[in-house]
């Protein structure tokens, strides 16, 4: 069973790079293995979250869109 979401961030209306910056800041508060979900409306956030996850090693578990709102589910990497 998947762990529950520890933190949910509403970053709708913010343009890049702010969604990445706010997510990186929020990630610092999490313990390894904890999940964070992020809501954003900037279309550029889709490739940005994918690339940020790859670079930093924090897995991007889900990336989806509903009614113009993008949702990303990330897991903090193990230390």
């Amino acid at each position, binding site marked *: 069973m998947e762990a529950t979401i520890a933190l949910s961030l509403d970053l709708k*209306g913010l*343009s*890049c*790079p702010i969604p*990445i*910056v706010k997510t*990186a*800041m929020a*990630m*610092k508060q999490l313990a390894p293995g904890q999940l964070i979900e992020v809501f954003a409306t*900037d279309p*550029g956030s889709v490739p*940005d979250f994918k*690339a*940020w996850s790859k*670079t*930093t090693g924090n897995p991007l578990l889900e990336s989806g869109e509903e009614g113009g709102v993008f949702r990303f589910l990330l897991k903090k990497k193990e230390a």
Partner: protein
Amino acid sequence: MEFVFLLDDYLRARGIRDKSEIKLLSPLNRAFTIEAASRLVQPILAERGIELTGFFNVESVDPVARTVSSLEGETVAYDLLVLLPPHRGQKVIEDSGLGDERGWVPVDQNTLKHTQFEQVWAIGDTTDIPISKSGSVAHYEASVVAAEIMAAVKGEAAPAHVYDGKVMCFLETGRGEATTISFDYDHPPVSPSPARRWHWAKALFNKTYWHTVPQGRLP
């Protein structure tokens, strides 16, 4: 961006470029937030030996140890750190109750009319629209807002002419050359190859601005 190109020039002129390292630390995995502009400048950065470090969102600076650390967990040593602070709106806007939590005035991105308050418009670096906080933006927005206000005063229908997100700026690329970046909401930037004429155009524009643009002699 212009700073690193001009610093590269300066260090070469001093004859100490080979003894110096220039690193550009970017919040994203590219040099500019706009992809097309990144594609323009990244080859120039590489050609000049300027290293791009992506996804470096500054968390802290240790001025004694001379290191800067990122939220992503990287630490870079420096002799000279040139840091852009996070941009935010003016305190007067925060205090007025007209702004959002970051001090920007929330407006419709086409009419520039406040999203909550009647008879309030905003232009330039006060607005929350997702576009450069630059002088050219204020310039292109000014005529839209002037027409909006005139129509409101006269009780006429709102004008059809709206702000389309137009931005135009010069970008110095060093070695006496520059390019331009011009785009709007629907069109990504298309830039000419860096050339001396754009450097001179920027210099000329800076000298002549007050005699041309505010007087309406240039569009």
